[in-house]
């Protein structure tokens, strides 16, 4: 199942190292499409990534609070097959999306990844996040200057004892 050379290995290394840092540019965002406007806003959000709980991280990153929306579709397993690499993804039908972020409430630092979107790109991202224990997972979508959220509980279990 694994190879040790080639693009896959590289990608795996990136993902491993990305468990708690931003993955700017790794999503659906082609480099060529990055407009100047995004570049101007490109400063690494150090303060936000340092926050321990998700509310503080959202505030540090966006300076406002999010309202739950059924237009944000967050996909993640109910029970993680491997807490070290939990596949999560967000899609949305909201217009004018400028940013999508993932927050893992029970991780030592809540903000796990934040993506910025150029005009005209499809607002969909997938990532794999490390979760040490069962946690609330929050997805934030910034659209037209407002914040929207979706939440899902992901269980990380010791396993065993199936019927």
């Amino acid at each position: 199942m694994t190879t040790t050379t080639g693009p896959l290995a590289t990608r795996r290394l990136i993902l491993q190292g990305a468990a708690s840092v931003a993955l700017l540019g790794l999503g659906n965002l082609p480099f060529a499409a990055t407009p100047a406007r995004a570049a101007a806003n490109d400063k690494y959000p150090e303060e936000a990534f340092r926050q321990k709980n998700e509310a503080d991280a959202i505030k540090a990153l966006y300076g406002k609070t999010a309202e739950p929306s059924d237009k944000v579709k967050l996909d993640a397993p109910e029970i993680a097959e491997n807490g070290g690499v939990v596949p999560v993804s967000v899609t949305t039908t909201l217009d004018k999306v400028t940013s999508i972020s993932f927050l893992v409430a029970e991780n030592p630092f809540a903000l796990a990844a934040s993506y910025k979107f150029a005009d005209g790109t499809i607002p969909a991202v997938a990532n794999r996040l490390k979760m040490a224990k069962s946690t609330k997972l929050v997805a934030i979508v910034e659209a037209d200057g407002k914040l929207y959220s979706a939440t899902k509980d992901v269980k990380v279990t010791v396993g065993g004892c199936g019927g």
Partner: protein
Amino acid sequence: MAIRRRDFLKSAGLAAASLGLPRLARGTEAASIYDLERFGNARILHITDTHAQLNPVYFREPSVNIGVGEMAGRPPHLVGRAFLERFGIRPDSADAYALTCLEFEKSAGRFGKLGGFAHLKTLIDRLRADVGEKRSLLLDGGDLWQGTGLANVMQGRDMVEVANLLGIEAMTGHWEFTYGEQVLRDNLERFKGEFLAQNVFLTEEAAFNDALAFDKATGRVFKPSTIKEMGSHRVAIIGQAFPYVPIAHPKRFTPDWSFGIREEELQKHVDALRGTDKVDAVILLSHNGMDVDLKLASRVTGIDVILGGHTHDAVPQPIPVKNAAGTTLVTNAGSNGKFLAVLDLAIDKGKVSDVRYHLLPVYSELLKPDPGMAELIGRLRAPHVTDWSEKIATPDRLLYRRGNFSGPIDELICTALRTELDTEIALSPGFRWGVTALSGQALTMEDVLAETAITYPETYVQEMTGAQIKDVLEDICDNLFNADPYYQQGGDMVRAGGLSYTCTPTAAIGGRISELKLHNGKTISASHRYKVAGWASVTGQQGAPVWDVVGRYLRSGRMFQERLGSGVTLKGVDDNPGIAGQG
């Protein structure tokens, strides 16, 4: 024998006129019990969780099967009298014996063993003949290949042969996956039916490395569904494998595959079957477990009936569940070959207009074993039965497993582990398979294997702090009592030997387990380290297989010298009808 016959006749509501018939006339009696009124235009037969029990068995249904949250007091979380009342079953009847724990030993003497594939074959053939060619289907919901010593040494090959002779046309899986991909694929090569699973996908790595898949575009490892022509109608069968295989079992068996409930993919697939393939009926052959199926039925639309398994709930009537587009019926068909479910459908163009459902107990004493199947079973067992037939102990009490927290079988296994491996505490998995042995019935290695035969049987001894022990108990307890069924895995609570505790099922994770004490009454300290024995670990272990340890202990003749007792005190569930004698 006369008494037993009379009991059956009473339970079947027959006239006393046939009482004088000789034993050979049993065929006529059976005819009455298994004579179903003709209904509809398609018949689907469903077996599930037989756990490879080739011969008839005793199997005691649980006396503790607690439901919490919305599941409290609802099927399948009813036991004993509450169960009989809910389904209108007469106490003291053969059906009460098949479906509940009430007066189990007494009734076992009256009604005998249930199941057995030669008996199932007779019944299935008859119910298929009743409706004629191309009007019936035989489906298996999984856990067909595991549960006996024979299935374990043959890695399920025995059950593939049996399935072919029985005529199983489609199946899904759970323990089938614990033989690993290669064995699974080899077995499926020989299987004449189809293996269906809409919810098994290649991991991203496996897809990247071009691993084998049914559909490369979606990453689905197996065919998700099949469409069968039944009369002039088209019926779609979708397979739903156990969603938590890599979590409940060692991940090494399925490294390339990712499971899950996959509600969204399921909805898309149902919609495609309805919209593109224009099927007239959609059946989900599910190994989700009943609570998960009940929730799924409320959220996914377009499924007519979910034929369920995994949680081993013998539920005599389908449970209707409303959703955004209509109603889905949810069933669960018990375990160990005890039952054959019969779903008769009245199908019109594009829809199911009505159904009849019967969960038929397979009373082995009322069914003549099919000679061909009996011969096959004999041939499969022959190379091994002698090795396993030595009587190694005769227990002085009823031994059963099923129950949320404990049962005598697992108390025995825990005592064997603690004694033979010299530990204070033993942990044993809360499996729901494993047959029942009557008091005074001599046990053989074949019996021990029927409680322990898995592909990761290695025992272990390790040190755990009191805090770690509590965490493990909390974690597994949440798999059972999480208020949201999608977070449940469907097994029972881990069995603890040498340890007593209080459990509050209605609490949240972290707050259910309290008052942990050693067998001698000493309180468990969070920081103290305890020696713990166990088996069936999801991480690799090196110890002797558990059946050897249990066999050694039984041979020593010490069986029940130690005080037994579950050691679990329940809190907050006083009126819960999921506990016998309550509600």
